[in-house]
């Protein structure tokens, strides 16, 4: 029993780490889509930020400089997508896909150019990397029954970006539903004409959403290369941008459900790693390929069984212009 509890805690701990980039990227997508811009370029921005953060951290030796640079790079990409989507009224899906591809090529090219480690950045250590934060009193509380392991394993011991990710969820909920900015943002994604006739600039709102989107994707990428990992590796975002997009849709474009969707993805992913090679009663050992597809099948089943119809923000993906 105690073993099982500990096992679950370890899974939760792992889920939290795996969910960190997902949560941040999914929120980034959420801000964008709530303002009316579809963003399938989460992957590219994450990758770009991962590269910029790792590169800057390697050069300066400071993880925080890495974070700043990563976020900066991601904002630049987000504004590019914003400009294409807003002022150029371009196809947002193509723009997002293009950004993914450009970054996938450009990041290793630059890495090679600067570090001659073709496609990778130097390994980070010490202050160049976000270390796990050990919470106060872990030694004392950690010995308590039940709560102790929870505190020590799950709550304490993540890097700062993970905590930022978790915190940004209630912040996003508050911003969207309780502030003027959020009200206008959501309106821009549902009916930009209403925003326009209220005398508010739809463009301005959407650019601001893209800046937030850039910040969040930047954090996600930074977490990848300087928190969870310790260097930039080619294609290291490994489809997480698309998974984040799925989590956002799964969470119905709402912050808290999106968090749970990300945690669920993280948890099932951790669980599938744990189930690999385990002999299950009656079934025996499941082939790796089947445990690996478990999270995906699970998602489909949940979507088909429990979630029901999901409606996107009505104006998302549609360029806005007043005069045809």
């Amino acid at each position, binding site marked *: 029993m105690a073993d099982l509890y500990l096992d679950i805690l370890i899974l939760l701990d792992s889920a939290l780490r795996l969910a960190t980039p997902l949560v941040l990227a999914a929120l980034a997508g959420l801000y964008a889509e709530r303002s009316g811009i579809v963003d399938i370029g989460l992957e590219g921005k994450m990758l770009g930020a991962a590269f910029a953060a790792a590169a800057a951290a390697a050069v300066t030796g400071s993880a925080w400089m890495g974070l700043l640079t990563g976020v900066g790079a991601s904002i630049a990409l987000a504004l590019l997508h914003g400009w*294409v989507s807003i002022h*150029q*009224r*371009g*196809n*947002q*899906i*193509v*723009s997002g*896909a*293009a*950004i*993914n*591809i*450009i*970054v*996938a*090529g*450009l*990041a*290793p*090219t630059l890495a*090679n*150019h600067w570090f001659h480690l*073709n*496609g990778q950045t130097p390994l980070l250590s010490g202050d160049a990397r976000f270390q796990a934060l050990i919470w106060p009193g872990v030694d004392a509380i950690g010995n308590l029954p039940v709560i102790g392991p929870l505190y020590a394993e799950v709550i304490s011991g993540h890097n700062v970006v993970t905590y930022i990710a978790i915190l940004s969820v209630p912040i996003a909920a508050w911003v969207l539903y309780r502030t003027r900015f959020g009200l206008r943002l959501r309106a821009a994604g549902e009916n930009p004409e209403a925003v326009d006739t209220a005398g508010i600039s739809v463009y301005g709102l959407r650019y601001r959403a893209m800046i937030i989107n850039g910040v969040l994707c930047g954090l996600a990428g930074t977490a990848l290369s300087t928190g969870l990992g310790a260097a930039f590796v*080619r294609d290291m975002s490994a489809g997480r941008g*698309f*998974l984040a*997009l*799925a989590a956002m*849709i*799964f969470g119905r474009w709402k912050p808290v459900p999106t968090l749970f969707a990300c945690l669920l993805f993280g948890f099932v992913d951790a669980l599938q790693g744990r189930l690999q090679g385990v002999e299950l009663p009656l079934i025996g050992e499941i*082939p790796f*390929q*089947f445990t*690996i*597809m478990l999270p*995906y*099948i699970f*998602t*489909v089943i949940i*979507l*088909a*069984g429990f*979630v*029901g*119809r*999901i409606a996107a923000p009505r104006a998302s993906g549609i360029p806005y212009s007043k*005069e*045809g």
Partner: protein
Amino acid sequence: MTAERRAVALPAWATSGLLPVLNLAAAFAVSGLVVWAIGESPLEALKLLLYGAFGYGEAIGYTFYYATNFIFTGLAVSVAFKCGLFNIGGEGQAMMGGLGLAVVAIGLDGWPPALVLPAAVLGAAIFGAAWAAIPAWLQARRGSHIVITTIMFNFIAASLVSWLLVGVLKAPGSQSPESADFPEAAWLPKIHDLLAGLGIQIEGSPLNLSFLVALACAGLVWFFIERTKWGYEIRVVGGNPGAARFAGIPITRTLVLSMLIAGGLAGLMGLNELMGLQHRLIANFTMGYGFVGIAVAFMGRSHPIGIVLAAILFGALYQGGAELAFEMPTISRDLIIAVQGLVILFAGALEHLFRPQVQALFRRLGALGEAHG
């Protein structure tokens, strides 16, 4: 604000010819900057790229060979999009299509090509279609968002095929996950062999019969979408589901139909890659072509002719890019990927970039014409 903003209707050749060319030029200009930054000559690079894509027979063959993949996946995205569905599942559908044709090709060992080839084509289309139909049905009936389900189905397909390739389909003795070779009856003839049969000699390349199949599919898709009642229903459902309901169009059936066709088209990609070149099923043979199909479909404005042109552009980038990386060792394959991304951005997403300038030009020309006339 007034005079410049007034819209000038551009002639068709300007919107579908001049503007895309300008955009392409812009993409190459930006890429050229990057090439210049790493110390190579942009002009030289462009020359190599163009020569590598179109300069000689084999290059052209490879260009069209890659384009074949993109035509299939691009059509797959566009047919679903006509029905309002965003099909990100081309990758998985192509994978399953490959599985389908492999099962048929290997299962019909010993049969004559005249039977094996059509059966394998059918196998590919059916497997791809079935793989796409499930997300469509889930979307229509259970409201499961198709973007998520198709992404998930990509992963599931990859796992499934990979499991089969280390299990029942594994080629004995191979170290990589691949099936045994298809019987020769299931090899699609290469175009250069076909032409040689007619007495025309061209350079050899992997370009094979499936390119013609792809072109035929583009034509059929156009006819189906624009000229049949089912295509019409697909467009109505995509354009306004409420009106579709009011007009008595069965929504679920139409959604599933569009995804069946989309999946079937994506599934046919295996014709080119597997029956045309590799002659066996290999894991991950889809190489992301399914995703590129999204860009191809939207760059081609979801019109079959546009898709064929966009696919050829991408084929040229793949082939010319490889050539460029080959000839200019400082230009890595990563940089080529970045250039491809820039082309997608400029040619696919920035269609309005030069419109105001071109409109101004036309206005001035129009004014001149009036003054003289």
